[in-house]
């Protein structure tokens, strides 16, 4: 890729220290830093430029980097995601935004049959260092076609790497790590978290390692394993239970789904002996299925109770507020499952 040379990092966005910002802003900061650091990085997707991004993640990037590096596309996910694959094969670092995970289905063939296959299928002769950014998640009555989380499908595909940050600092750190990674990485963002605030380390050289889970909250009675928005929910429930019932819940935030950090999960379960897996998507054949499988195998003698799961009700998400709420893996539902696990259920 001699033709595309990396420029000297003249990192404007580099004030060291921390700053409080939203998840959305943290993602934007990550892109700005990486685009300044490496000319090969460019952003492409529907409405990422003139419209400032349909969820405003890319707001301002067009002005800063121009239309060649912040490229608005027609509505052609298969076409422009595949174009990202081709550009990446020539050594560029495309960051392709898919408006929501639901729409990735029309580009599925390019992700699974192409991007994921390149490294192995051509004997390591070419690589595909691309990033696909897209939010999963439900809520806000977006209904059946716009409220899905297929996280496990991608995490189950050899050749891909999949991360799913649950807070602003990891959003920045994981997106940067994904952009610098030499393999195709799917960065699963989340609609409800976009507006969540948190402290973010500004240092442009700090990234969150791919494949490393985080102990988001220490506890001793039970472990909740989650990722993406489910982690946010789990942390809220943990605080509530600590305050109201003196229950000590440990929360593991997976952060990466492939590679999956089973080691950190197993260490926690070995300590608490009880575990609940939570996800925003459908639990059956979902991410929590793999977690339960790994945990029962790695922690067979540690478990005092079966691994429990909470996910979205197994229905295409309905529109009506009441129905949607009844279907979501709400805090109430998570709390109830934790209490069942601890045999504290009223």
């Amino acid at each position, binding site marked *: 890729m001699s033709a595309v040379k990396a420029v000297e990092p003249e990192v404007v966005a580099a004030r060291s220290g921390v700053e409080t910002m939203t998840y959305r802003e943290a993602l934007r900061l990550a892109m700005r830093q990486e685009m300044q650091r490496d000319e090969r990085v460019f952003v492409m997707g529907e409405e990422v430029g003139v419209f400032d991004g349909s969820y405003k993640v890319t707001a301002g990037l067009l002005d800063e980097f121009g239309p060649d590096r912040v490229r608005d596309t027609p509505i052609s996910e298969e076409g422009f995601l595949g174009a990202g694959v081709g550009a990446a094969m020539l050594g560029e670092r495309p960051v392709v935004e898919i408006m929501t995970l639901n729409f990735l289905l*029309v580009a599925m063939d390019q992700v699974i049959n192409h991007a994921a296959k390149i490294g192995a299928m051509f004997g390591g002769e070419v690589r595909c260092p691309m990033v696909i950014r897209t939010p999963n998640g439900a809520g*806000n009555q977006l209904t059946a*076609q716009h409220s899905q989380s297929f996280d496990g499908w991608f995490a189950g595909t050899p050749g891909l790497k999949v991360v799913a940050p649950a807070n602003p600092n990891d959003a920045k750190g994981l997106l940067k790590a994904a952009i610098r990674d030499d393999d195709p990485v799917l960065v699963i963002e989340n609609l409800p978290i976009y507006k969540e605030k948190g402290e973010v380390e500004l240092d442009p050289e700090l990234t969150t390692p791919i494949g490393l889970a985080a102990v988001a909250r220490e506890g001793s009675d039970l472990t909740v394993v989650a990722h993406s928005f489910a982690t946010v929910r789990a942390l809220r429930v943990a605080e509530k239970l600590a305050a109201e019932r003196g229950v000590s819940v440990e929360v593991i935030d997976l952060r990466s789904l492939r590679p999956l950090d089973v080691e950190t999960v197993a260490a926690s379960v070995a300590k608490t002996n009880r575990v609940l897996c939570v996800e925003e998507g459908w639990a059956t054949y979902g991410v929590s299925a793999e977690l339960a499988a790994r945990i029962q195998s790695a922690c067979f003698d540690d478990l005092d109770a079966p691994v429990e799961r909470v996910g979205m009700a197994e229905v295409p998400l309905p*529109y009506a507020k*009441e129905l949607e709420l009844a*279907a979501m893996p709400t805090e109430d539902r998570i709390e109830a499952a934790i209490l069942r696990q601890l045999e504290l259920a009223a």
Partner: protein
Amino acid sequence: MAATATAPPATTLKRFETMSLIRLFEEEAERQYKAARIGGYCHLSSGQEAATVGTVEALAAEDLLVTGYRCHGFALARGVTPEAVMAELFGRRDGCAHGRGGSMHLLDASRGFYGGWGIVGGQLPIATGMALSLVRRGASQAVLCELGDGAINMGAWHESLNLAAVWHLPVVFLVINNQYGMGTSVERASAEPDLYKRATAYRIRGEQVDGDDLEAVLAISQELLAEAREERRPAVLEALTYRYRGHSVADAGLAYRTKEEIAERRKRDPLERARRVLREGGVAKKEIEAAEASAAAAVARATEFATASPAPEVDRLAAGMYAPGSGEQFARMEPGSPFGERELVFAGGLGE
């Protein structure tokens, strides 16, 4: 359907009333959305009334209609009651999809209106298959499939058009060219901005019409639908129009176009134009006002109805997902099943 030229004042007045109904309904929907009685994505069609009513009026009673998510106007024009549409937007039991679908997924099979789809381009193969089914049963009916100017760049367009043409299916693809797909203008999205010309890639007829001219839209729609019905000739109809509001209620609609451009377009307002035509056709001013008043009253009744309609029962969450009888098939899935399954799918919620 009477040809427009000879259309009696009563007919044209009725069409005007339908256009007014759509405009007023959309304005009410926006108010209700802001009052948080409507949620999700809500796409309004203000400005597109002539293109909507003109094409739907050209449908025979047995013809079928399939659209994207910007479908309030199409549902109303097809005769779905404002009550059933507003109740659906409110997510209530009496909505045309019983509160399951919302703004993007309206449907009324009894009127041959098969949705109301939210994935850009996803409705095209489905409409094509409906046309195939009509042919299989030897029916002389046609399918009208609406899509937007942005949707035309999806692969589904190409595959559907080719299938419809190579199999000679009775389907007319209506491209509502309102100049933008979200914030992207036709010129930035489509290498052939004269969208109707893409019909040539399939050796079928393509026509472009001023989508704000009700009579013109109606006339060409009748012609193309007749060819589809009687000669199994698929076609593309591009209706040039404009969307006054943002892409959805959440979009101010000014990041990618100027206030001036919108003002310019409003001068060609299809409702204004229709009023003029009526007056020229000798319809009295107060008859026109009466039509507008009755449209306004219909919208008011719709909101009242929707407000009074009960919310869907939560214990029927999974209703409709699977056909009656499926409960038995799922019965053995229960042991050790996670929350969703046990408490919801098996709580008699399978719609039986």
